[in-house]
């Protein structure tokens, strides 16, 4: 069965510093997609970044980047120059390619950015 594991329930970082959130996954598929979503206190779920498994290059979106290690089944999120607005719950998710595109979710990491 497909699983996603986030081993850090809570993390904190000082404003302007860099933080890395961990995620590991397990799938028997060769082609799949990985995502990081952010849920701030407003509870609105926002897509932060996506990675296609067949692409070796790590995805980057402004201050957000991933370290995708396919062999290790690891997909960590790095947030550079952390801002107070980055305070949120961060969820890692995966989806297999093909007709069944259901997202499998991790339990989330609560990130607090401190001034």
């Amino acid at each position: 069965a497909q699983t996603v594991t986030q081993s850090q329930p809570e993390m904190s970082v000082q404003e302007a510093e860099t933080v890395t959130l961990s995620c590991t996954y397990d799938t028997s598929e060769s082609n799949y997609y990985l995502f990081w979503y952010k849920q701030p206190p407003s509870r609105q779920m926002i897509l932060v970044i996506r990675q296609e498994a067949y692409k070796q290059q790590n995805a980057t979106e402004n201050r957000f980047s991933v370290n995708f290690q396919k062999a290790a089944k690891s997909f960590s999120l790095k947030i550079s120059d952390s801002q107070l607005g980055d305070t949120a719950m961060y969820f890692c998710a995966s989806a297999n390619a093909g007709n069944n595109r259901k997202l499998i979710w991790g339990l989330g990491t609560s990130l607090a950015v401190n001034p």
Partner: protein
Amino acid sequence: EAGVTQSPTHLIKTRGQQATLRCSPISGHTSVYWYQQALGLGLQFLLWYDEGEERNRGNFPPRFSGRQFPNYSSELNVNALELEDSALYLCASRPGTGYEQYFGPGTRLTVT
């Protein structure tokens, strides 16, 4: 482009009543997903609709049901409400050829 919309924002019901939650996907998106998120917990998958059909269902009792309309909007019905049904209900839509889901702001259901 308008995002996913959900109504109502808040819903207060008493135990045993029925609740109806509504979702309008992003224009052009054919798939709609429903999730339950209890306070402080992760997302629990409820239902997936695509092209008007129920495609997959999470581990929830039959009193959780829904449908998708020809315009791809969707409705989630919860019958015989129980106190533990109090949660944030999130709707997400996905384009037919994509994998990422886009979420609405949620409906907060409170059962008293």
